[in-house]
């Protein structure tokens, strides 16, 4: 979680930075003393989250919210308890922290944030998946260009200088690499789970120990890829 802290009080910025350090996934990429500096910063750097003070001179936090394009998730930090109700009118505002922020309250906020970011990512993946439903890829087999729909591709296996694509109950052997084909595949549907395998994770039948079953193929999951796979699944 890349975040910035926008507050005109250096002491308030220092506190939020210290609290962020207690959350392993959180990385403070900048502390900014006003909303104008924040707007400038966001022109060249993308962040997941902004801790935003409301009461700042010149451009207030509210002005900032109404000015910024495509805002990331925002957590408001202020001494003004009365702003809470108004704040929740914006869907990208995840939480509202009243200063001085306690350690316990910040931990709760971190959980809320993680859930909100996960939900956003999932929603984005669903949109991308819907968009890629009818998209396709052409592969070159013996000088013939064959069209494969993304939704029909089950998995891709690296085999030396070739890759084997399993789709529509057929195996297609193509002179390419996993790295190259990965760039062509939508992230919303495909995931590399092993150095030799990319799978269409919407086609998973089950997962047992360190392998997934797709149609009749049992594919190993490498230890390093397992966390991302688990994160992408809609687990109960």
């Amino acid at each position, binding site marked *: 979680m890349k975040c910035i802290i926008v507050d*005109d*009080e*250096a*002491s*308030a910025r*220092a*506190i939020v930075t*210290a*609290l962020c350090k*207690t959350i392993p996934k959180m990385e403070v990429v900048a502390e900014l003393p006003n909303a104008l500096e924040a707007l400038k910063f966001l022109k060249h750097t993308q962040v997941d989250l902004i801790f935003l003070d409301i*009461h700042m*001179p010149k451009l207030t936090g509210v002005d900032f919210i109404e000015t910024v394009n495509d805002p990331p998730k925002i957590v408001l930090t202020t*001494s*003004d308890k009365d702003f809470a109700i108004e704040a929740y009118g914006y869907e990208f505002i995840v939480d509202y922290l009243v*200063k*001085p922020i*306690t*350690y316990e309250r910040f931990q709760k906020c971190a959980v809320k944030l993680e859930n909100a970011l996960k939900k956003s990512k999932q929603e984005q993946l669903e949109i991308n998946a819907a968009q890629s439903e009818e998209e396709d890829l052409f592969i070159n087999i013996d000088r013939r260009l064959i069209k494969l729909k993304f939704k029909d591709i089950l998995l891709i296996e690296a085999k030396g200088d070739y890759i084997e694509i399993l789709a529509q109950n057929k195996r297609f052997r193509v002179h390419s690499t996993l790295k190259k084909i990965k760039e062509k595949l939508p992230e919303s549907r495909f995931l590399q789970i092993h150095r030799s395998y990319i799978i269409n994770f919407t086609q998973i039948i089950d997962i047992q120990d360190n392998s997934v079953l797709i149609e009749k193929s049992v594919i190993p999951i490498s230890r390093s890829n397992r966390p991302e796979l688990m994160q992408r699944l809609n687990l109960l």
Partner: protein
Amino acid sequence: MTEQPNLDYIKEISGGNEEFEKKFLTIIQTEFPKEKQEYLDFLKVDNLEESAKIIHKIKHKLGILGLNTSYRLAVKYEEDLKRGDIQLKEEFDEVLQVVEDFVLKLA
């Protein structure tokens, strides 16, 4: 005023990180006297709205230093100033003095 400032909150937030504590106290030592002066300067020229804005910042520091009663006083005083009422000035100035003495001793 019986309430006295303390560093409990700062120690809790720092998680025992002495370097952070030092850095943070240096920030308070710089910020607080400046804010106090700004507040007094605005009052001198009867700019109560700007004075209230500075109190908004100061009250955060009162919370940081564990001054809960003074924090509530600051909340009330901030609102009063917005309405042009300065009755709590004397009481609030006493709080500022206590905090300033404490902050200076930290040096």
